[in-house]
C-alpha cells in the first residue's frame, strides 16, 4: 500500500482503538495513541510533500478500490495529491498534531478524555479524505464527516443545554449549504458526465454546452453549478448569509475551536472553491459574487468582533473575517494568495486560540474580557505568544500574515472580478482587524487586573513544558510561515478570455495597504486608552443599543428567527393536525372505541359473566330453532 493511501489510516486506527476501549484506557495510553498517530501522520505527510517537490511529477495518486459506478462514470476511492492538497495535508496534520498535543494536556482532567481524542482523530480522518479525494463524491464524504465531528465536538460537554443547542445550530446551518452543494454535484454530473475533479476542471473548459446559455434559460449550467458549490462553501466557511453558527460553536472545548473552527474545517469551503477553479473561471459573475460575499463578510465580522466580550467570540468573528479575505482572494482570481492566507491563518489562529485556551485555563475558565486585565505581568509567556499571534493577524510587516494578506490586497485592484471598491473593503477590514486586535490585547493583558481570584499557577498544570512547546512551535510557524513561498499559480487555470481590465493600479496602493494596520493601532492606542492605563476608573462593557446589536452578531440571529424559524415552527404546529394525520388517527380512534366497549364487558364480576353466558346461550338456541 502506498504511503499516500495509508495517510488517513493512522488517525483512523487510533480512533478505532480509542472508541473500542473508551474509558478503560488511562490518560497516558490514550494520549500516546492519539497524539502518536497524529505525529506519524504529520511525518508521513512531510515525507510525501518532500517526495512531491523533489520528483518531476506534479501529482501523486493512490487508487484503492472502485466505490461504485454510475453509467460510464466510475467513482473510486482514490487519493490525489498535488500542490494544493499538499498545503492542506501539511496544515491538517501539522497544525493538527500540535493541537492534539495541546488538547491532550488541556483536557486531561475531563472524564470523557478518550472520547474527546477519538472524535479529534476521526475529524482528522475526515479532513484528510476531504482534501485528498480525487472525486467530488469522496470529497463530499469527507465534507459530511468533518461536519459530523464538528457537531459532536461542539456538543462535547452535552450536559449543558446551550452547548447542545449550539451544536444543533451548527449542524443544521451547515446542512443548508451541504444540500446546495449536493445539488451542485448532481448538476455537474448531469452536464459533464463525470465526478472526477481533474476531469471536471478540464471538461468545464472544453465542453461548450456547459457554459452556453440555453434557449429559455437566463444562466448557463456553469453559473448554477458554481453558485451551488459556493452555497456549500458558504455554509462550511461561515460566510454571509450562513455565518451565524460559528460564534455559537465556541461552546466547544478550546482546542476544538482552534482545530475545527479556525485552522482546518472552516477553510474547507475555501479549499473547495480553489479546487473547483476550472468551474468558477467559466463564470466571472459567480467569481464576482464570491468576492463580494467575502468582502461584506469580512467587514460585518470585523464590526461584530469590536463589540464582543468573550475572548473566544472575538477570535471566532476574526476567523470569519479572515476567511472573508480568503474568499475575496478566490473571487478575485488570486487563487494562490487565498490558499497562502489559508495556511498562514491556520498557523496564527491556532496559536491565538490555543494561547487563549491556556489563559482561560489559568483563569479558572473565565472567558469574559472585562474580568481579565493586567495579565501581562502574571502570564508573560502567554502574553508574548498572544502578541505574536495578533501581530500576524493584523499583518505587521515581516510576519506571515503580512505576506499573505498583502498578496491578497495587492491582487484586488486590478482583478477583473474584484476592483477598487473591494480593495477599499479589504483595507477597511484590515483597519478593523487591527482595532479589534488592539482592543482584545488591551482588555486582556494591559490595564488594571479585574480578576478577583488568584490564578492557577503554571507549574500546577502538569506537562506545562509540553503545552508551551506546542505553542512555541506554532508561534515560530506564524512568524516564519510567510517566508515559505507558496506558488500554486501553475496549478490553477487562468481566465479563458481576457476580460478587459479598466483599472490601472495607482502607485500609492502598497503604501496604503502597509500603513493601514499602523493607523488602526495608533487609533486604538488613544481610543481605548482607559483599557490599557491603570487607573481607578472601572472598565465595563458598553451597554448602548448599537454595541449590544453588534455583540449579538448584527441581528442576524433575530432576523433568521423571525423570518425562518418562527414561520417554520408555526407551519409545523398547524401541520400537526392535517388531513393525513386525521385519517390515520381515525383508525386509532376506531380501535380505541372497540377497546373501551370490550373492556367494559370484562368487569371481573362472576355473576355478570354467568348472566351473559346464559343469555347468549338462550339467544343461540333461539337462532337455531327459529
Amino acid at each position, binding site marked *: 500500500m502506498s504511503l499516500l493511501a495509508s495517510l488517513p489510516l493512522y488517525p483512523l486506527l487510533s480512533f478505532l482503538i480509542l472508541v473500542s476501549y473508551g474509558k478503560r484506557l488511562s490518560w497516558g495510553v490514550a494520549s500516546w495513541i492519539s497524539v502518536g498517530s497524529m505525529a506519524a501522520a504529520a511525518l508521513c505527510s512531510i515525507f510525501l510533500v518532500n517526495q512531491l517537490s523533489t520528483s518531476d511529477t506534479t501529482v501523486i495518486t493512490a487508487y484503492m478500490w472502485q466505490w461504485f459506478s454510475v453509467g460510464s462514470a466510475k467513482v473510486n476511492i482514490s487519493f490525489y495529491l498535488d500542490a494544493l492538497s499538499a498545503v492542506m495535508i501539511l496544515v491538517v496534520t501539522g497544525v493538527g498534531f500540535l493541537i492534539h498535543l495541546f488538547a491532550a494536556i488541556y483536557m486531561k482532567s475531563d472524564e470523557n478524555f478518550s472520547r474527546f481524542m477519538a472524535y479529534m482523530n476521526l475529524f482528522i480522518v475526515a479532513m484528510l479524505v476531504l482534501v485528498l479525494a480525487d472525486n467530488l463524491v469522496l470529497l463530499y464524504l469527507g465534507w459530511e464527516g468533518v461536519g459530523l465531528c464538528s457537531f459532536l465536538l461542539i456538543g462535547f460537554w452535552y450536559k449543558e443545554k446551550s452547548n447542545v443547542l449550539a451544536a444543533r445550530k451548527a449542524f443544521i446551518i451547515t446542512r443548508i449549504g451541504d444540500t446546495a452543494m449536493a445539488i451542485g454535484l448532481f448538476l455537474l454530473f448531469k452536464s459533464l458526465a463525470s465526478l472526477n475533479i481533474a476531469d471536471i476542471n478540464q471538461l468545464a473548459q472544453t465542453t461548450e454546452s456547459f457554459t452556453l446559455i440555453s434557449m429559455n434559460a437566463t444562466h448557463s449550467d456553469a453559473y448554477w453549478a458554481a453558485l451551488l458549490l459556493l452555497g456549500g462553501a458558504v455554509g462550511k466557511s461561515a460566510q454571509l448569509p450562513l455565518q451565524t453558527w460559528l460564534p455559537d460553536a465556541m461552546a466547544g472545548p478550546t482546542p476544538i475551536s482552534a482545530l475545527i473552527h479556525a485552522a482546518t474545517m472552516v477553510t474547507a469551503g475555501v479549499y473547495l472553491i480553489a479546487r473547483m477553479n476550472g468551474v468558477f473561471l467559466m463564470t466571472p459573475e459567480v467569481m464576482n459574487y464570491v468576492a463580494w460575499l467575502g468582502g461584506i463578510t469580512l467587514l460585518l465580522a470585523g464590526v461584530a468582533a469590536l463589540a464582543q466580550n468573550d475572548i473566544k467570540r472575538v477570535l471566532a468573528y476574526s476567523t470569519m473575517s479572515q476567511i472573508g479575505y480568503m474568499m475575496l482572494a478566490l473571487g478575485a482570481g488570486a487563487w494562490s494568495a487565498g490558499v497562502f492566507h489559508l495556511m498562514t491563518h491556520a498557523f496564527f489562529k491556532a496559536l491565538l486560540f490555543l494561547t487563549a485556551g491556556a489563559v482561560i485555563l489559568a483563569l479558572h475558565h473565565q472567558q469574559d474580557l472585562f474580568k481579565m486585565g493586567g495579565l501581562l505581568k502574571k502570564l508573560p509567556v502567554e502574553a508574548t505568544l498572544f502578541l505574536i499571534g495578533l501581530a500576524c493577524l493584523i499583518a505587521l510587516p515581516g510576519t506571515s500574515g503580512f505576506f499573505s494578506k498583502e498578496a491578497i490586497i495587492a491582487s484586488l485592484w486590478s482583478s477583473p472580478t474584484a476592483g477598487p471598491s473591494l480593495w477599499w473593503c479589504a483595507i477597511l477590514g484590515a483597519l478593523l482587524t487591527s482595532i479589534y486586535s488592539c482592543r482584545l490585547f488591551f482588555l486582556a493583558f494591559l490595564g488594571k487586573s479585574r480578576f478577583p481570584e488568584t490564578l492557577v499557577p503554571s507549574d500546577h498544570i502538569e506537562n506545562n513544558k509540553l503545552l508551551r512547546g506546542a505553542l512555541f512551535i506554532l508561534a515560530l510557524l506564524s512568524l516564519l510561515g510567510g517566508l515559505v513561498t507558496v506558488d500554486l499559480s501553475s496549478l490553477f487555470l487562468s481566465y479563458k478570455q481576457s476580460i478587459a481590465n479598466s483599472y490601472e493600479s495607482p502607485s500609492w496602493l502598497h503604501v496604503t495597504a502597509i500603513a493601514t494596520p499602523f493607523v488602526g493601532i495608533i487609533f486604538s492606542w488613544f481610543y481605548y486608552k482607559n483599557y490599557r492605563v491603570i487607573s481607578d476608573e472601572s472598565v465595563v462593557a458598553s451597554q448602548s443599543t448599537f454595541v449590544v446589536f453588534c455583540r449579538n452578531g448584527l441581528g442576524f440571529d433575530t432576523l433568521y428567527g423571525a423570518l425562518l424559524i418562527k414561520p417554520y415552527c408555526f407551519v409545523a404546529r398547524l401541520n400537526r393536525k392535517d388531513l393525513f394525520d386525521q385519517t390515520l388517527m381515525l383508525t386509532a380512534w376506531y380501535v380505541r372505541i372497540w377497546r373501551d366497549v370490550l*373492556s367494559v364487558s*370484562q*368487569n*371481573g*364480576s*362472576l*355473576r355478570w359473566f*354467568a348472566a351473559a353466558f*346464559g343469555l347468549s346461550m338462550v339467544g343461540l338456541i333461539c337462532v337455531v330453532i327459529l
Partner: protein
Amino acid sequence: MTEIPLTHILILSSLLFIIGFVGVVVRRNTLFMLMSLEVMLNAVGVAFIGAGSVWQEADGQIMFILILTLAAAEVAVGLALLIRMQRRYRTLDIDVLNQMKG
C-alpha cells in the same frame, strides 16, 4: 299408576332450571350461588329421570347417578373454595372477587 305426560316433566325441569339460573345470577352470597347451581343440576336430573320413565329405559337413571356424583364432587371443591374465601376476605360476597378485569 297414571302416566305423567312428558311435557309436564319438561316444564317442571325447565322451571327449576330457570329458578336455579336466576339464583346464580341474582344472589351475591357465594353459598347461595352454589345451592342454586345444585338446583340447576337437579333440574337436569329431573329431565333425565322423566325421559327414562316415559321411554322405559334405565339410561336416564344411570345418567342421574352420574350427575349426582358430579354434583357431590363439585360441592366438595366449591365448599373448600368458600372456606378459603371466607378466611381471606372475611366475606362471601362474590362481587368482592372482581380483580380480573379486562
